């Protein structure tokens, strides 16, 4: 694919996304906003996945971001945008400290630990008494941009742009080679001079930073954070399924997955009040068994085949 063509799709998509609020009614706009939230989270999850580590703790850092934004706005008087930045920074710092210990673990044990993390954070916030608002959580006096629907949408779009940019940076730079090498074979990676722990840390902190930002934005858009709402495993499950379906180890993959599943989620929630999440479980199982590289991965494989020769993996 020539370079110009490769830029057309993202630019057009971005234009459509940016102009969407001007044409859409309130309900589609709200749905779109939630799709954007999951999209950003899905991209952040993929970031760490590239190193071979699976995190089941998206909800954990997302929730920490939400609480940080709330607490910094309520107690430190930070303006909304700064509180969102603080959310990202605190999530990143927390990931850095925790990473020192848990990044020694691999695969299953790392994954379970991240799952436990989300639960730990929830319990801490729940038992935090007045400081964290306890089980009822914290309520904000006002929403960002006064809750104006279009502005909220564009804020979420900004989060997607941030996630997408970070993801693309990782793909274009030496980070891609480092993380892929670590994922394929740590011993080979080490003998190439790659310091495994450093790169894992970079991926983990970046991923958590993004999750914190998205959490902060969520708080500012909805005006409240409670242990059960922001640490809901929904925020782990959906992005995971979306990235898997759309295509892992890429930037466009999670975008595609979020669009497809995000819209489907809304529909399912209306039709099946209890247990609509079963569809996600089934999707995850099917994707892993039948299409492990996801839709975008299949597409890329096709492009290679049509080109008649195996191409360099750019994504």
């Amino acid at each position: 694919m020539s370079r110009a063509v490769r830029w057309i799709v993202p630019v057009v998509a971005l234009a459509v996304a940016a102009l969407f609020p001007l044409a859409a009614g309130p309900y589609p706009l709200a749905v779109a906003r939630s799709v954007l939230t999951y999209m950003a989270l899905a991209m952040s999850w993929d970031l760490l996945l590239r190193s071979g580590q699976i995190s089941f703790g998206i909800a954990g850092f997302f929730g920490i971001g939400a609480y940080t934004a709330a607490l910094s706005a309520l107690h430190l008087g930070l303006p909304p945008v700064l509180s969102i930045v603080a959310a990202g920074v605190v999530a990143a710092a927390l990931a850095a400290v925790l990473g020192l210990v848990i990044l020694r673990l691999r695969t299953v044990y790392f994954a379970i630990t991240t799952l436990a993390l989300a639960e730990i954070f929830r319990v801490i916030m729940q038992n935090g008494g007045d400081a964290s608002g306890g089980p009822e959580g914290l309520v904000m006096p006002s929403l960002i941009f006064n809750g104006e629907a279009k502005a909220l949408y564009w804020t979420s779009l900004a989060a997607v742009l941030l996630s997408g940019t970070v993801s693309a940076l990782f793909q274009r730079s030496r980070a891609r080679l480092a993380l892929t090498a670590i994922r394929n074979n740590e011993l080979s990676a080490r003998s190439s001079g790659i310091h495994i722990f450093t790169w894992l840390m970079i991926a983990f902190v970046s991923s958590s930073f993004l999750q914190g930002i998205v959490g902060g934005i969520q708080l500012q858009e909805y005006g409240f954070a409670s242990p059960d709402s922001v640490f809901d495993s929904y925020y782990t499950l959906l992005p995971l399924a979306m990235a898997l379906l759309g295509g892992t180890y890429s930037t466009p993959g999670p975008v595609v997955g979020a669009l497809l599943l995000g819209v489907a989620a809304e529909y399912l929630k209306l039709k099946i009040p209890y247990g609509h999440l079963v569809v996600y479980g089934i999707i995850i199982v099917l994707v892993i068994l039948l299409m492990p590289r996801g839709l975008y991965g299949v597409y890329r494989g096709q492009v290679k085949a049509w080109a008649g020769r195996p191409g360099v993996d750019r994504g």
Partner: protein
Amino acid sequence: MAIFVVAAAGILAWKPSALIYGVQRAGLYAAVAIPMALVLGIVHIVNLAHGEFMMIAAYAAYFAARLLGLDPFLALLPVALVMAGFGLAVYLATVKHAMKAPELNQLILTFGIAIALSQSVNLAFTSQSWKLSLAYVSASATVGELSFGVFDFVYAGIAIILAVGLRLFLTRTRFGKAALAVGENPRGAAIVGINVDRTYALVFALSVALVGAVGSVFLARQAIFPNVGGPYTMKSFCLVAMAGVGNITGVLFCSLALGLSESLINSIRGYAGWSNIVFFLIIIVTILVRSLRERKS
């Protein structure tokens, strides 16, 4: 680890009811974790749906109780057999195909299965929690001034039976020895004529059957709801990891450590809500201690 257990027990000697509660909790954790030690520790299959299988078994036992009037202990064997079949079916349909793929895939796959299972139950029976009321679960004993429930000791009993039984199975039976061989070196096992695929399938089914048996007993005392299995999956993994892969008796000790610690925190007024995260702290400490030990060597 042993020191830790003794210390915790020592502290709790001041609060005997907490000590008893801790041992009972430990029994439950151990009973659920030992089948995990079999499937993860011995043959290295990652099954994140472990707790969900227990939940399904509990629901099955519930229906056996409501529709057939079967006491959960009587239902234990039939439920275990049904779960064995169910586990085998799930394995053959899904996990089997991920065996050659990187472990990442098993992880995500069984995570998906866990969600599918718990949400199917949610879909079918809503998230309401169900409970049986059986007379004998409130049996209690009195020692001096202390009175405590005795039913929950049954879990500890089951855990010990499982541990001993599993040990015997692995070392004395042909199938058990095959399982050990496959876990240690699948290619080598294949060369000496062991049917590796069948071994994996049957061990998986056995692990599901065992955790299903625990699930049946679980129903007798606890309330069940679709997500009840999740925390047990987590804790089982942590216990198997702490004990060290392949170490079944270690799981008993680590469960004791976990149960006693949780009970300890629980008994401190005002901090009861934190007991859930004790296991996480124990993991962190274990990791740190292990990596420090590695540095030294």
